[in-house]
């Protein structure tokens, strides 16, 4: 197993950030951790990357204990933290070489590697500039390059593509996919599409607890039983999603998106009476939706905004 967690808990004064997580992640997996703001994703990454110690529980990276063998773990992990923690007084290239030196790589080895990664992230022409002169996305790419210098066997990515344009995001995805053979990847993201495309296994976390664990397909499967429809109305009809007649037929609260309303029927048989109730002349179209990861996410974690 690349990563083993046994009942990991982390309590900050009166906040329980991680509440008893147990996981076994196999080598070569792309593992995705999803969850609303404050769910505990970053805390979990910090625990596994030996930045923070857990309040209780055990965790192992390739058999090394996070509490006792932190130095050994740091040789084999690469870390992209949520915040771009670059050194603004060092050039882009110096940021990378400092990392290589701290990893104990000899100059002959890291020089080539650093240039290769700068090239790959499209930053080679800016290598002698200071990162505070970079755009947010460029800084992000530099942090990703830095995490890869020593060719880690387990890579932790805390929202790696936040702030990246679609081109860079795709380039990062491609690179992550190309690493898959030799590397175990543990990533957190708020982009459902990213989790869907990249991850072999997904866990949705909320309030420090794992709500669901499985492949993207198996997670979507959990909503298959219910029926999700998108109802599009004529432009002059202003539906009120909280209207009583809707509520009887549907399980979640309906919600509006791009002028149409998404509803989750309690049962297929309610479709006809619902349409009759609204009057067909107001309805432009009805589509049955395949549940997306986002639907499951919202279903499990609720609709309200987190503090």
């Amino acid at each position, binding site marked *: 197993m690349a990563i083993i967690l046994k009942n990991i808990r982390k309590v900050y004064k009166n906040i329980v950030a991680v509440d008893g997580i147990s996981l076994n992640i196999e080598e070569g997996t792309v593992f995705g951790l999803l969850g609303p703001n404050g769910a505990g994703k970053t805390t979990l990454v*910090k625990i596994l*990357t*030996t*930045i*923070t*110690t857990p309040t209780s529980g055990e965790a192992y990276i390739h058999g090394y204990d996070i509490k006792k063998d932190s*130095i*050994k773990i*740091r*040789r084999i*992990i690469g*870390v992209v*933290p949520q*915040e771009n*923690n*670059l*050194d*603004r*007084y*060092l050039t882009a290239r*110096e940021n990378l070489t*400092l*990392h290589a*030196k*701290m*990893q*104990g790589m000899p100059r002959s080895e890291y020089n080539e590697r650093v240039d290769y990664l700068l090239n790959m992230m499209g930053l080679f022409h800016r290598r002698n500039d200071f990162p505070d002169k970079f755009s947010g996305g460029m800084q992000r790419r530099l942090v990703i390059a*830095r995490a890869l210098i020593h060719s880690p066997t387990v890579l932790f990515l805390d929202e790696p593509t936040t702030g990246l344009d679609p081109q860079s995001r795709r380039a990062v995805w491609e690179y992550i996919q190309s690493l898959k053979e030799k590397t175990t990847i543990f990533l957190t993201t708020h982009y459902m599409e990213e989790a869907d495309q990249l991850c072999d296994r997904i866990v949705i976390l909320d309030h420090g607890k794992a709500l669901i664990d499985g492949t993207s397909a198996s997670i979507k499967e959990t909503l298959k039983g219910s029926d999700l429809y998108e109802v599009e109305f004529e432009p002059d009809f202003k539906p009120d999603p909280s209207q009583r007649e809707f509520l009887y037929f549907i399980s979640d609260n309906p919600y509006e998106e791009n002028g149409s309303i998404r509803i989750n029927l309690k049962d297929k048989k309610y479709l006809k009476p619902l349409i009759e109730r609204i009057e067909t002349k107001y309805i432009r179209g009805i589509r049955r939706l395949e549940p997306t990861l986002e639907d499951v996410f919202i279903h499990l974690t609720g609709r309200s905004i987190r503090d």
Partner: protein
Amino acid sequence: MRGIFPICERDFIVSWRNISSDLLPTIVSPLTFFLAFGFGLQGYLSDIEGVPYTMFVVPGLVSMTAVTSAFDHGAWSLWFHRIVQKTINEYRVNPISVYEIVIGKILSGFLLGAIKGIVVAIILLFLINFQTSTGAESALGLLMDYSLVFSHLLFYLLFVFLGSMIFSCVGTMCGTVMDRPEDLNKIQGVVITPLVFLAGLFFPLSSFPSEVLPLIKLLPTTAIFEGARQALLQGRVESQYILELFVYAAVSFILAVIIFQKYIEE
């Protein structure tokens, strides 16, 4: 302990790069004191313990520069790495121990402080030379009069080094536990400045009433300024001062390492 090297190297690269903007503030304060007291008051003051006032303050000004620079570097650099850039967490995902990180930081603060002290020493000696070359004596001649020999200089440097070491450790402690920049400024005003001014930099310790003198002698800055001056000008090394400084250095070093290790794990 391999990790100490890249951390120090980084601090030296950055300091070298900022040298043009850093140098001025470093030399302005000792230079101001030198001009105001050394030149300005010189004529009104008799020799202190047989030493012209200018020569009396210069060794202290050099030690002061070293000590305050070491504190500043230790405190602000660690604070910046922790709070602003969060680069401490980048250091901490690499295979180096917390000990290597603090020791690297303490060491670079101490070396940079000592280097700045030496730069100020050279500038002040040049100025003394200028001041006295109108008379018969050159600075070199003046120093020779005080039988400045190589061993004096070595002992003087020992004092400056120990002082920088202590203040680099104290700075590191402050930079580790204080989150707000105002607090660091307060420490400078409330702790460092009184320590510097009470320690007999500008006046002989004999001015203090004899009841408080033993207390004043316990201040690390007294040991640094007074001890360093005696070593340089008289070739006299007071064992109490040396002993005090070694103890302070050892204690502050151990405390800095323990505090850093405890606080940095969040």
